[in-house]
């Protein structure tokens, strides 16, 4: 995570950070840092929510067996090491010694078993399928635990670095109101209180030790407290930042140029967020049951130009169906099978299908609300019109769009033209492609036995090189068939504005904000 050169030349935060050190300005230990965000967490229980806002708070309370390094590769963390059985079906983890849960109990194998058993229990985790085909967890000794799988699962280790696999201490079983009033983990902060809709107050965990997070500080955090406050209105958030009522906040998108032009605040743009935006189509009926129509849309639209106009330098062109930083993402590889802006080629494809001047291809483009995406959609609409595709735009919230896309694919009782949509997902592993496309996937969309078999292979293979090949086979298939056409990344705006007194704030790969190195300067 670093500041983008296109935002500020050179990286202003880095310069300011070093300027404080050079000028000898004191970076004081302690203090309360207020982090203002647009929304609240949904739950303190990592098994009961899926929002990024929730995950980012879990990161502060809990820790994970593995941790992503700066490049998004899973490394040892609470698990000091592990061994995989020859058949790839059992993983034995050796845990770090001397780690304490927030209630003072010793962290160990029982806590790992408690977490996994709970994720598959009567009220299972909302993301349990991401844990993989786990059949059992066995405590070997206090610091050794074995997890057994039904079949090999290539995305198992990366999942153990994600917040959804946060280790919940077994002592939570006796705690009253786990998930709302209590949350015991081994993370850098302890829960003090959560006033729903308002704020989460966390205090320094004096026993915290960092093993695998990409930060400099291996011990407890420098701050006394971290207060995560909900301020939904963007202008109010910015005002809170300017008046000093908040130290870190997501600024309103339209104010970013002003922030960059001024000296008052610094910006940090999250990289390797795992998110990307792509075209997908209703393939169950005309016109997008014909590959030429799908390819025509892809050739007729120029994401590079559109994102430059709307987002300046804060988003990048993404050729792959998985985001930059995710295993298997390779721009050069994906670009070979991509659809460069080529309106003439789009017109040719449309002409082959019988469309032309006076007989445009009629369709509807779905876009989800926010982030100035309506402007992006209008640019695409104009580009499509230029080649003879008349696309009306429907803007809706992301949940509605998810449901509408699936419904469109499942409808058989209509002759209305199929739609296409600008869809988005964020994940830390190419396993997302399995969720999106296996057996028609999350949207009951494109389905073929060939693709299903290829996707199954990406799950089963655990050897890195073999898995990479399998993932790239899937990518090639999705792109050459114009099923899933990458547009840009990250897609959602994860830009943090910081007051100048905040030093050491980092956003790790896949949107994990880290406060271990943060100090407030006097």
């Amino acid at each position, binding site marked *: 995570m670093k500041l983008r050169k296109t935002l500020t030349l050179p990286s202003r935060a880095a310069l300011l950070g070093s300027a404080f050190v050079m000028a000898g300005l004191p970076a004081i230990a302690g203090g309360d840092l207020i982090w203002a965000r647009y929304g609240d967490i949904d739950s303190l229980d990592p098994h009961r929510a899926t929002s990024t806002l929730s995950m980012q708070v879990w990161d502060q309370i809990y820790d994970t067996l593995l941790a992503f390094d700066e490049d998004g590769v899973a490394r040892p963390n609470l698990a000091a090491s592990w061994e995989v059985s020859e058949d790839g079906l059992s993983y034995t983890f050796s845990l770090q010694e001397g780690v304490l849960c927030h209630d003072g109990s010793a962290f160990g194998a029982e806590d790992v078993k408690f977490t996994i058993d709970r994720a598959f229990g009567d009220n299972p985790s909302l993301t349990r399928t991401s844990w993989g085909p786990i059949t059992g967890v066995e405590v070997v000794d206090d610091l050794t635990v074995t997890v057994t799988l039904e079949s090999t699962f290539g995305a198992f280790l990366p999942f153990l670095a994600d917040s959804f696999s946060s280790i919940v201490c077994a002592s939570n079983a006796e705690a009253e109101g786990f998930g709302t009033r209590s949350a015991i983990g081994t993370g850098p902060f302890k829960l003090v209180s959560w006033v*729903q*809709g308002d704020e989460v107050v966390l205090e320094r965990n004096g026993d915290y030790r960092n093993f695998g997070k990409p930060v400099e500080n291996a011990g407890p955090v420098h701050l006394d407290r971290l207060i995560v406050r909900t*301020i939904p*209105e963007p202008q*109010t958030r910015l005002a*809170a930042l*300017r008046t000093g*009522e908040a130290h870190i906040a997501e600024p309103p998108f339209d104010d970013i140029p002003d922030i960059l032009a001024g000296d008052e605040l610094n910006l940090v743009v999250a990289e390797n967020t795992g998110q990307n935006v792509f075209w997908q189509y209703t393939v169950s009926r005309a016109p997008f049951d014909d590959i030429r129509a799908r390819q025509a849309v892809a050739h007729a639209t120029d994401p590079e130009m559109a994102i430059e106009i709307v987002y300046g330098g804060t988003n990048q062109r993404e050729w792959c169906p998985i985001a930059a930083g995710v295993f298997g993402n390779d721009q050069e590889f994906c670009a070979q099978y991509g659809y460069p802006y080529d309106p003439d080629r789009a017109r040719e494809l449309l002409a082959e299908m019988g469309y032309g001047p006076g007989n445009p291809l009629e369709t509807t483009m779905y876009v989800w609300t926010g982030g100035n995406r309506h402007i992006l959609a209008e640019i695409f609409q104009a580009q499509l019109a230029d080649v003879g595709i008349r696309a009306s735009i429907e803007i809706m919230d992301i949940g*509605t769009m998810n449901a509408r896309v699936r419904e469109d694919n499942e409808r058989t009782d209509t002759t209305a033209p199929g739609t296409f949509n600008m869809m988005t997902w964020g994940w830390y592993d190419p396993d997302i492609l399995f969720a999106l496309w296996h057996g028609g996937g999350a949207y009951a969309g494109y389905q073929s036995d060939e693709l299903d078999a290829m996707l199954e292979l990406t799950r089963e293979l655990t050897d890195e090189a073999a898995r990479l090949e399998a993932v790239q086979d899937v990518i090639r298939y999705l792109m050459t068939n114009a099923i899933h056409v990458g547009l840009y990344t990250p897609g959602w705006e994860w830009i943090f504005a910081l007051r100048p007194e905040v030093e050491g704030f980092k956003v790790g790969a896949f949107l994990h904000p880290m406060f271990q190195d943060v100090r407030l300067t006097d």
Partner: protein
Amino acid sequence: MLRFIVQRLFAAAITIWIATIAVTLLIHLVPGDPVRIMYAGFQTTEAEIEAIRARLGLDQPVWRQYFMYLGRVLQGDLGHSIVGNQPVLDTLLQRFPATLALTVSALVIAVVVGGSLGFFAAYKRGTAWDFGAMTLAIVGVSMPHFWLGLLLLFLFSMTLGWLPVGGSGWRNLILPALTLGLATGAVIARLTRSAMIDIFDQDFVRTAHAKGLPKTLVLYRHALRSGLVPVVSMLGLQFAYLMGGAIVIENVFAWNGVGRLAIQAVFARDYPLIQGFILFFATVVALVSVVIDVTYALLDPRIRYGT
């Protein structure tokens, strides 16, 4: 009087009953499958989707869904929220005191500021003062709450640094209450002005002047008291208006009331919470209207005779 109260309570009950029908139908008016929309992003299997549909009663005919919902509501059960799985009624009651504090403070500001401005404009009728006061009132009526809030925030928090930007606590209440109160006060100013102009032309005011009573006594004891009667009658309506305004204002100032909860529920597509909020909101507005109507009837006996 008892008959009047019963009539008013009956009217309120009908309003609440209509709200129960509206919230039952709400879920069916949403484009797309409501269960899939609610659980978008969760790893739910087809079997689980069906189980959720059954749990929410969405697999039943609409009329049965309605009676099931009504039955639960009569037992005080508004269901559980999707996000966080909390009892909806408890969540609403937890947040309601903050909204009540905001709306009552705003109402006081509205009556004091709006009433004074209207009275002053009527007293200075036809002068530049009148014109100026009414221009201010029109600006107040026309300006969106949201925009006024941001302007006050810019002035009092960012420029002058007198008040905090947002959050909980009494100092945080001032700006949202002022925003909501000033906007509503503009409506009250216009009402007061027209009411006072009527009163100033009445015979009893002229008589009071003719008797040689001091001007201030005529204005405040005779004219103002009578002039405020129609204004008080509008307070019920204004309260509903304030509750509606609170939805936006709580969001602007991060005031943790039911209005903000409603916005969060909408963004989270949390239908049980949205349904609960609408019903709760309708009930509060209906009951407050009854209280205001009854108070008004006690103050002015002509009202209950007229019903």
